[in-house]
């Protein structure tokens, strides 16, 4: 009997469906993820407008909103419970479908195989399944908008027992919450398949000469992120399954006995609400690194091409990311300082949390220090990378406050927290995505984005996001509570002007994103054709055409001779040497 050699990774696609829809090609899947993230971020942003609008003009009708929900917004006026629905959907969309999909799944899928010189991912079929599972998760979540009692109102953290009891606990907590839990469970499954693929691909499909330490920093970031994602989603998935059982099968994992909700004694006993919080945050904290690490990688990658010199040390950046990845498993309790867990645990959790700022500071100092002596080319991608550093610093310093249990007693659940996580996780990692988009769009589509529009987009976004999120910190210092749909307490009167300022900034900044959307669509069809290496980059994606052929490198397998960042040297083509060029590197 014949033993076969395994087939090629896969054959060139022939039919339209195989090429563009059910594609096995990592590049198409990457673009699909990007499209999904774009849809999610657009929706999520519109939801944030509605929230901000409602907070400062609670009695003004939003035209057309009653068409989407007659109950939630009768006559276009948002009800308090609909505010919480918007909040929950905004948070869920942003954290899962934007921050996990765009920097990690979209760019990672497109560029990780290319940057290590592989023809495709290790398991293209799993890869396709992972995208379609994620899309299904998205659709299930969106369905919650169109069911009679509307989307869930328990926030993106879905704390039990509020999320576990069912419709007795309030609107949206019936089918809406069940759909949420199913959606997140599907999302976990999709992400697990994706992470599996990323890890195996990085470990086994590297080209000749591509040692681990020669991989670009963003490849490292995707690799570390997939290791974190593998463990994090492997924990959230069981948690969601248990939640679904509590909701639909009458079990009591998270519901204790003796609860009287809506005048009904609940038929449950013995469950533990804190168990949900522990499982959720065991996933939840690593999740914020899933959101930020890829952007750190992208920004490092872009910065070096902009600065025309390598970072002070790529190794130190990689080791810092590794230690962040490692420490991220020991700090989940910092979300639970006042949750009723043992107060000794709070002290225990605060130490690794403070410690994790050491690698973060090292990375920041390396980025800053590397700018010294550079020769920066100011492109849109460079601007967003530099903006990332500024944002990361601004969001990072507020972490110092929240990492201390004693200060957290006062600041927990205030807008200070909202300001902190929007800056350091939301905006910073979105800046990484923008930087990546301006940097790689040409490679991904074969057309360049318009740089002038890109710069206008940067200035609006950079100044705008500061105007939105910096004041959140001030509100928090005064003691403004988050997740409130209206500020009925005596305290809020003097703060309303600041709230108005934030809302106006949010509307303007949001409008500024239309420039980006226009740029994407216009350039996709009518942009300048992209050259192979528009930014004089050195890594492998710049050694193949834009867009790359279906099997990336054609019939040859690339060979790598250098680490990824030979900038500021004398090469035959200028001040750089490509990673796959056998040239000797002269001078530094």
């Amino acid at each position: 009997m014949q033993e076969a050699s395994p087939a090629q990774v896969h054959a060139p696609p022939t039919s339209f469906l195989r090429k563009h829809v059910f594609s096995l090609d990592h590049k198409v899947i990457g673009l699909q993820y990007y499209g999904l993230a774009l849809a999610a971020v657009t929706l999520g942003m519109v939801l944030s407008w509605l929230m901000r609008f409602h907070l400062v003009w609670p009695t003004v009708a939003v035209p057309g909103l009653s068409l989407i929900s007659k109950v939630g917004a009768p006559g276009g006026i948002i009800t308090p419970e609909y505010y919480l629905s918007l909040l929950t959907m905004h948070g869920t969309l942003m954290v899962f479908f934007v921050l996990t999909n765009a920097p990690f799944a979209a760019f990672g899928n497109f560029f990780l195989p290319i940057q290590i010189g592989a023809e495709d991912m290790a398991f293209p079929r799993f890869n396709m399944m992972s995208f379609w599972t994620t899309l299904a998760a998205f659709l299930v979540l969106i369905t919650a908008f169109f069911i009679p009692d509307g989307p869930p109102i328990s926030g993106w953290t879905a704390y039990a027992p509020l999320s576990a009891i069912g419709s007795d606990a309030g609107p949206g907590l019936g089918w809406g919450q069940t759909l949420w839990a199913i959606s997140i469970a599907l999302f976990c499954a999709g992400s697990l398949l994706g992470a599996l693929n990323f890890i195996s691909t990085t470990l086994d499909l590297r080209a000749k000469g591509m040692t681990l330490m020669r991989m670009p920093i963003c490849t490292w970031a995707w690799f570390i992120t997939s290791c974190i994602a593998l463990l994090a989603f492997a924990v959230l998935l069981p948690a969601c399954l248990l939640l679904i059982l509590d909701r639909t099968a009458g079990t009591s994992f998270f519901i204790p006995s003796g609860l009287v909700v809506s005048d009904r004694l609940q038929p449950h006993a013995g469950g533990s609400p804190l168990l949900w919080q522990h499982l959720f945050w065991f996933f939840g904290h690593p999740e914020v690194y899933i959101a930020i690490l890829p952007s750190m990688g992208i920004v490092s990658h872009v910065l070096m091409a902009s600065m025309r010199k390598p970072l002070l040390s790529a190794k130190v950046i990689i080791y810092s990311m590794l230690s962040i990845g490692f420490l991220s498993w020991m700090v989940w309790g910092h979300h639970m300082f006042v949750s009723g867990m043992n107060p000794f645990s709070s002290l225990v959790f605060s130490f690794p949390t403070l410690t994790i700022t050491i690698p973060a500071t090292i990375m920041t100092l390396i980025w800053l220090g590397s700018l010294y002596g550079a020769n920066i080319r100011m492109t849109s991608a460079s601007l967003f990378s530099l903006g990332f550093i500024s944002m990361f610093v601004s969001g990072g310093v507020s972490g110092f406050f929240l990492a201390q249990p004693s200060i957290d007693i006062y600041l927990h659940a205030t807008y200070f927290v909202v300001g902190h996580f929007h800056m350091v996780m939301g905006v910073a990692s979105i800046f990484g995505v923008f930087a990546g988009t301006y940097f790689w769009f040409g490679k991904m589509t074969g057309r360049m984005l318009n740089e002038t529009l890109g710069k206008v987009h940067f200035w609006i976004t950079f100044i705008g996001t500061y105007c939105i999120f910096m004041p959140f910190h001030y509100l928090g210092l005064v003691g403004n509570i988050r997740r409130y749909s209206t500020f009925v307490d005596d305290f809020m009167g003097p703060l309303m002007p600041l709230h108005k300022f934030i809302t106006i900034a949010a509307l303007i900044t949001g409008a500024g994103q239309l420039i980006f959307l226009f740029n994407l669509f216009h350039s996709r069809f009518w942009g300048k054709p992209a050259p192979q290496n528009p930014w004089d980059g050195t890594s492998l994606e710049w050694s193949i055409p834009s867009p790359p052929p279906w099997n990336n490198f054609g019939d040859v397998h690339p060979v790598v001779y250098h680490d990824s960042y030979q900038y500021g040297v004398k090469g035959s083509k200028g001040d750089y040497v490509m990673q796959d060029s056998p040239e000797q590197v002269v001078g530094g």
Partner: protein
Amino acid sequence: MSSTTYTPVAIPVAQQARTRVNVVARSAADGASRSGVWVAIFAITMSFAAFTSALFVREGGSVDWTHLVLPPILYANTLVLLLGSVTLWMASRAVNAHALLDSHAVKTVMGWLIATLALGLLFIAGQYEAWSQLAAQGLFLSTNPNSSFFYVFTGMHILHLLGGIAALVYLVGQLVGSHTTFRRAAFHNTAIYWHFMGVLWLYLLFVLRTKL
């Protein structure tokens, strides 16, 4: 800004290394599926660590924990599953003993594979029997916390085992019919996964049996 095209490099070392893609892809793809299995095992371990720590928290902190008397058939099932690992191990021996599989070797391997498959299915039937016995005692998924965990653990384990069964069916399918082909890597990876399923079950049984 300049643009570069991919120009073939001109030094001999590079020439040698520019091998055809599919030759390189062979070992690399097999290696990737090997690490894929280990990565999957890692993730599954993590999931069950979450499930079982949920049990510890739930049992440790509650007053309504009634310890379940496990149906004795579970121990028979355990034996069946472990026996399946033994037959699969026999199959591995046969595969390893033949650099090229002749028709005799194919028969041996196929025999052991089918035995493993049968034992796996028997295990699932046995687990189903355990469920029926519990149900007959009035113990359902939502009856008490311990029965909840029992059904969840056994159910999730079977769900993962079905993946192994599918892989075994695929391997048997490769051995029958003349046009088909046999991939050693796929075989070995299935074996790793199957043995892991046995270990996982032993762990779950231990957790379910133990009183805190």
